[in-house]
């Protein structure tokens, strides 16, 4: 059978690998569609044929739940992640506030009101009292990977992305890690879509919560939930 | 079947206001540039909707503004030959010719294709594209295309105006054959007196949107008061018949018992011809002149002398061949003491009868 998964852009590399493992093990076919969680949630709300949705934050999953679009019972938090401040590769680790204040260049972020990575980032900066300093310099992109690309190409000297993104992109270096308590916990909730909860989709969801897949995610830098 | 036209249409500064009837044969609409000829023809064709009017072809009403009747162009079944041919560039000559056929009503009897192609001499062109035709060939094809659409009348708006003399001479005979062989009215716009003389059975003279004269060709063209074309257009039409071709390249004609010689024509013996003798080419003599190079000397009687403001006078001379017009100076008329009833001779050079003035 075929399972169609809509997943947050930040999961791209890792989920590709995990899904391949599932396919090899079960013989099911997995079709993956990645984009910003916001775009995906909206499309699912309008009837997109996804069987399984993995969001990068709780809010978008909540909004689908409010519309009755997901199978509430299947919902579970799959992964966690951390938020980091990155610069071009070779940049030395340092103090977050000093790095942000010491550089007048742009700070690349995903859309701060819409895309999870941006929402987390804005929350963290606010918590750290840095938002007012940074806000005028933020360059927003339509998803977190686009923000990563801005730093990787040298366009922006700073960027706020997930730790997993920073790990995947050799052109960037982590300057500082945002304290876990500076933002709401990063969660990747997953749920089956109402009316499409097939056996295969359920199997995949279970597989992704299981040790083998979790190992794959860990290798890509994701953290288990509850960490 | 005749075409009856009555129109009223304001046209810029001009108000077009015409009424005339075109019997079978060629009716030439004649008049200066801007006198409204094209507008009339377009109204008849249905390409233009005149403010008021009644246009009927026999019983068949094409427009009657009083009764709210107005047929669109494609339902009028009139074959329109435009000045600029307007062949379809994407179709071969043959496809152009057949274009109208599919729209002809089931009952219609178009001219047989083979006959039209033969009559117009366009057989060798059938596979060519219009782009590769000469101007004369193009107009012949346009004429054929109109004929093959099974029209109930033919409209032709200066079909020869864009052509040089050689091309004109090439096409005029086809219109003559059309007039003589196809029994539908032909409305033909022209401002060439030679064309009128060769083709017209009826002439309608337009001036500033009004019909100022309407009648047979002979009447209208020999009427010196009709000068839409200036005095130089005046001339008489003679009917004649070929009686011999001579060895020295001359053709002999009989015109009402009088003999005329002109440069050889290709018409076989017995062919009836119409000749236009331009008034300014005719010399008048009281006595029969001797020892002149001019070969045609027609004895006759002065019928009328008209003179206007200029130095010229127009003399009508009744001869056996018909009435001949001569444009001479007033001084000569006085010197020769010409007056009505006087006997005289009309002297006409053979070579002065231009090839385009000889028709069937």
């Amino acid at each position, binding site marked *: 059978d075929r399972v169609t998964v809509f997943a947050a852009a930040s999961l791209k590399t890792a989920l590709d690998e995990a899904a391949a493992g599932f396919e090899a093990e079960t013989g099911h076919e997995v079709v993956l569609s990645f984009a910003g969680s916001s775009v995906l949630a909206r499309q699912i709300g309008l*009837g997109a*044929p996804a069987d399984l949705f993995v969001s990068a934050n709780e809010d978008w999953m909540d909004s689908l739940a409010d519309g009755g679009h997901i199978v509430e019972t299947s919902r579970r938090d799959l992964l966690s992640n951390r938020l980091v401040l990155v610069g071009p590769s070779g940049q030395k680790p340092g103090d977050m506030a000093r790095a942000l204040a010491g550089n007048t260049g742009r700070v690349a972020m995903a859309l701060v009101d819409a895309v999870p990575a941006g929402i987390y980032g804005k929350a963290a900066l606010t918590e750290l009292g840095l938002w007012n300093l940074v806000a005028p310099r933020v360059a927003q992109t339509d998803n977190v990977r686009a923000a990563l690309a801005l730093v990787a190409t040298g366009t922006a000297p700073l960027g706020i992305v997930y730790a997993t993104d920073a790990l*995947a992109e050799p052109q960037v270096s982590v300057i500082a890690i945002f304290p876990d308590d500076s933002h709401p916990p990063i969660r990747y909730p997953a749920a089956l879509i109402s009316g499409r909860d097939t056996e295969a989709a359920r199997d995949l969801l279970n597989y992704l919560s299981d040790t083998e897949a979790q190992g794959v995610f860990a290798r890509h830098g994701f953290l288990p939930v509850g960490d | 079947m005749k075409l009856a036209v009555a129109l009223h249409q304001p046209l810029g500064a001009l108000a077009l206001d015409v009424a005339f009837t075109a019997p079978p044969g060629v009716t030439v609409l004649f008049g200066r540039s801007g006198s409204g000829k094209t507008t009339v023809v377009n109204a008849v064709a249905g390409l233009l909707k005149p403010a008021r009017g009644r246009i009927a072809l026999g019983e068949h009403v094409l427009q009657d503004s009083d009764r709210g009747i107005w047929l669109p162009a*494609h339902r009028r079944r009139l074959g329109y030959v435009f000045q600029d041919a*307007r062949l*379809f560039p994407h179709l071969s000559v043959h496809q152009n010719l057949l274009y109208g056929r599919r*729209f002809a009503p089931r009952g219609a009897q178009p001219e047989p294709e083979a006959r039209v192609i033969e009559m117009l001499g366009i057989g060798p062109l059938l596979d060519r594209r219009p782009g590769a035709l000469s101007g004369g060939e193009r107009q012949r094809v346009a004429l054929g295309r109109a004929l093959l659409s099974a029209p109930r009348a033919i409209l032709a708006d200066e079909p020869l105006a864009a052509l040089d003399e050689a091309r004109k001479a090439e096409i005029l005979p086809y219109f003559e054959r059309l007039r003589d062989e196809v029994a539908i009215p032909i409305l033909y716009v022209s401002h060439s007196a030679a064309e009128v003389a060769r083709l017209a059975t009826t002439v309608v003279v337009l001036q500033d949107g009004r019909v100022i004269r309407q009648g047979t060709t002979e009447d209208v063209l020999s009427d010196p008061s009709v000068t839409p074309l200036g005095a130089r257009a005046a001339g008489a039409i003679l009917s004649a018949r070929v009686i011999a071709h001579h060895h020295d390249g001359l053709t002999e004609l009989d015109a009402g018992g009088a003999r005329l010689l002109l440069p050889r024509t290709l018409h076989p013996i017995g062919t009836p011809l119409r000749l236009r003798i331009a008034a300014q080419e005719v010399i008048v003599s009281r006595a029969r002149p001797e020892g002149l190079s001019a070969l045609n000397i027609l004895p006759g009687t002065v019928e009328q002398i008209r003179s206007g403001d200029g130095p010229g006078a127009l003399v009508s001379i009744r001869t056996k061949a018909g009435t001949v017009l001569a444009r001479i100076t007033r001084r000569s008329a006085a010197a020769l003491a010409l007056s009505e009833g006087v006997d005289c001779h009309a002297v006409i050079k053979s070579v002065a009868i231009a090839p385009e003035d000889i028709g069937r």
Partner: protein
Amino acid sequence: MAVLGPEEWQAVALSLKVSTWATVLSLPLAVLAAHALARWRFPGRALLNGLVHLPLIMPPVVTGYVLLIVFGPAGPLGRALQSIGVVLAFNWTGAALAAAVMGFPLMVRAIRLSIEAVDPRLEQAAATLGASRMWVFLTVTLPLILPGLVAGAILGFAKAMGEFGATITFVSNIPGQTQTIPSAIYAFLQVPGGETAAARLVALSIALALGALLLSETVARRAARRVGGQ
């Protein structure tokens, strides 16, 4: 060019299918709209002109969103179509619709210009030979605008091959189903190190579109020559 992976081939095949259908199906409508804009005088002409141009003016994402609202499973037209078995949203057919809508103004403009270049006197001549409006169009106007028609169609095709914003919004980016070349490129650009794969697809899509463009110029020139005579 390096060999493409199976997923990339899928995207290429899908893009070709989507663009072809988009072009073929919207062409008649484009001809109609172009003809109306070029030759008819009717109230609402300016409005029609604006409507035709809308997709050129609106951000593609908005166009896609509008399509989603109108033709989505919950949309008024979408539900009607679904009841007769036609599913557009999140389907390759929807990608074709999005591509067609986005390419429409370009097609109409090209065709309209070529219609305006047709000598109306030829159309009059056809009418005097008995052809009704419809027949005049089919037998005279249409053959004469062939070069413009071809140019317009290929331009629309090229645009369809590159359409992204409306497509990804309306039908999402599902490999093998709605992932066209541009969506695939977008996906690759999201992956660090995906630039090479993206560049491969970009090169391929450019080659395809340029090929079409070159073809269009050749065909248009040949058709123009054919119409021009000889």
